[in-house]
């Protein structure tokens, strides 16, 4: 299969621990079959700087916690046919979203991290993307086509969903999805 015929897959790492990407790589030898059919065009595992055009499938790990992530997510949605929430942070907000329980949480976590717990240079950075007031799961920001919950989702479920989609079928998550 030539590069032109392969399904163009992107992965994105937002507010998450990278565990979902680890689980993606944990497909063991099954990833070889997948590699014959897909081309990874963007993600932490490849060196492309800008999100490319005409992506077939984008797997997104992590919740939406800052402005940069929000705009990248919207860009990915606009340039992707099938967008998948990968893992509990993307699906529910999970641990990154725990701060939502506090009023004014963006300010609180910045003060906690950069002032209260800092030994030197106590100041809140301004040259990094601003935190959003609430951390959101992906589908509260853009339309999401499929959800793979799990912390992390098991490699076999990731493989199942991708294999079904590549075969042109709709994955059935009944009995397969698992939070936590």
């Amino acid at each position, binding site marked *: 299969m030539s590069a032109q015929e392969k399904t163009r897959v992107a992965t994105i790492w937002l507010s998450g621990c990278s565990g979902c990407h680890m689980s993606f790589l944990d497909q063991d030898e099954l990833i070889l079959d997948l590699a014959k059919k897909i081309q990874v065009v963007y993600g932490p595992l490849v060196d492309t700087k800008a999100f490319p055009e005409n992506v077939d499938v984008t797997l997104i790990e992590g919740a939406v916690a800052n402005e940069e992530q929000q705009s990248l997510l919207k860009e990915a949605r606009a340039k992707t046919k099938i967008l998948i*929430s990968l893992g*509990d942070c993307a*699906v*529910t*907000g*999970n*641990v990154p*979203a*725990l701060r*939502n*329980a*506090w009023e004014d949480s963006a300010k609180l976590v910045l003060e906690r991290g950069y002032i209260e717990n800092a030994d030197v240079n106590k100041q809140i950075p301004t040259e990094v993307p601003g935190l959003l007031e609430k951390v959101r*799961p992906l*589908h*509260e920001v853009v339309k*999401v086509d*499929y*959800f*793979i*919950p799990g*912390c992390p989702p098991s490699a076999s479920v990731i493989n199942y969903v991708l294999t079904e989609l590549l075969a042109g079928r709709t994955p*059935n*998550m*009944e*009995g*397969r*999805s*698992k*939070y*936590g």
Partner: protein
Amino acid sequence: MSALTVKLKIDNIEVEVPEGTTILKAARDNGIEIPTLCSLEGLTNYGGCRLCLVEVKGAPKLFPACTTPVSAGMEVITNSEQLREYRKMTIQLLLSERTHVCSVCVANDHCELQSLANKLGVDHSIFERNWTRKEIDSSHDFLVIDRNRCILCTRCIRVCDEIEGVHTLDLKQRGRKAEVIMDLDEDWVNSCSCTSCRKCAKVCPVGAIYIEGEPITRTKNKDVAEFILTRRQRK
């Protein structure tokens, strides 16, 4: 129990059960599983979680199987497309009401809410979460309550009242503000009626009440329900 029996159909299967049996029990005794989170055999049924709602032919509304007694000639449907959709929505409402974060929960992999969500294929929630910040009471020597994980099934309250017979636990407030409290809303350590029997932790379907320092697999031992039932029948 009355020796009289009634005949009815559940999912087109003809069954015969003693008069007064609930639809839930009649179904279970005949190998038909209806999902529920608040019902526990041996405790009074409460009809709180709404997961066991079933259709009865000819009736315009749905009935909770755990509190509806069978009647002769009844035709019950337990698993229609519509019911499955409602159940998924109920699970989503439960997940969004309080802060359920499985990955950091003591009951992860041993939680009835989590496993039911999985079984029913609830892979996300269409409802925005409340992200509650309710009181965690860890004042007791080993019993802990994290009210952010509570689904208000009231199993703990019923086991405390009906089996242990002390009624330490109860609810305060209503609706989404409702909370399980000890005595007159005391810290657990100050409760003078609590016997520290642990039954509340054992029947909790989620990770809201747990025993510090004990493996969750031991706390949530499935034999517990059996134990409650035998105790109840001896009464």
